């Protein structure tokens, strides 16, 4: 795989999140906060309904990064700010998030800094999302 070019736009990847995904993630990550599975409790704390785990969003975006670089150990530094909750309706389709990125800079050894954009519908769900990645293999 050829290296990244500064300014290069990396192709958008989409990820579907359903209630079943939230349950699976809760168990795997041992995060049992009820705002991720109970509409009753989510609405009680002022949310529109059950929301995704921020760390699930960060995990899905990390998949996009690893796919762009083409290696499972692509990431050497990774940071995000969670700006908006991702509401996941209780139906078959759930919701969808889209992740894209721009190559901010490339080092001599081929490692690169990526500026990541993640959206759900029209809303940006991450801000200041960046990954420093190893050179593509």
């Amino acid at each position, binding site marked *: 795989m050829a290296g990244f070019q500064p300014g290069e736009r990396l192709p958008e990847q989409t*990820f579907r999140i359903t209630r079943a*995904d939230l349950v*699976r*993630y809760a*168990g*795997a*990550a*041992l*995060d049992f906060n009820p705002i991720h599975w109970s509409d009753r409790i989510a609405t009680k*704390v002022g949310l529109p309904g059950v929301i995704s785990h*921020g*760390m*699930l969003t*960060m*995990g*899905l975006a*990390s*998949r996009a*990064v*690893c796919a762009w670089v083409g*290696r*499972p*150990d*692509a*990431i*050497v*530094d*990774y*940071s*995000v*700010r*969670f700006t908006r909750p991702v509401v996941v309706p209780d139906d078959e389709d759930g919701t969808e998030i889209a992740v894209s990125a721009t190559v901010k800079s490339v080092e001599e050894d081929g490692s690169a800094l990526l500026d990541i954009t993640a959206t759900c519908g029209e809303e940006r769900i991450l801000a*200041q999302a960046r990954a420093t990645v190893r050179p593509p293999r």
Partner: protein
Amino acid sequence: MPLSQSFVGRAYPPTRPYEVGREKIREFATAIGATDPAYHDLEAARALGHPDLVAPPTFPILFTWAAGYRLIEDPELGLDFGRVVHGDQRFSYQRPVYAGDNLICLVVVEEIMSRGGHDFLTTRTDVVTPEGEPVLSGWTKLVARGGE
């Protein structure tokens, strides 16, 4: 009432080592839909030069979150954790996490800030092996939303 600045710099005792299991890596990878063979298949991971299964990048939240939560639950801090949301997260890796690693978390309170009626609290967790090899650092910023 704003959180006490006296917590800045406070360090918590090292955690009991978290033993990274192959099945936990597979389970976590499956939960985020990560199908890369290096997360699931030992031979595939070794063929890429890794000593064991590779953990996905956000896997360390499994132990860094729990390590940092001791602060949230510290009655001295007086944080109402019903108001707490996850604001920012960062990981910086010296190397990937592998199955078979035993990982100890060293938590320190890096920053406490109040703005617009909200409290912001950043912890830094250095993750090391029992031999003292640094593996990664994680930063978690929690936001305690102010009352209406």
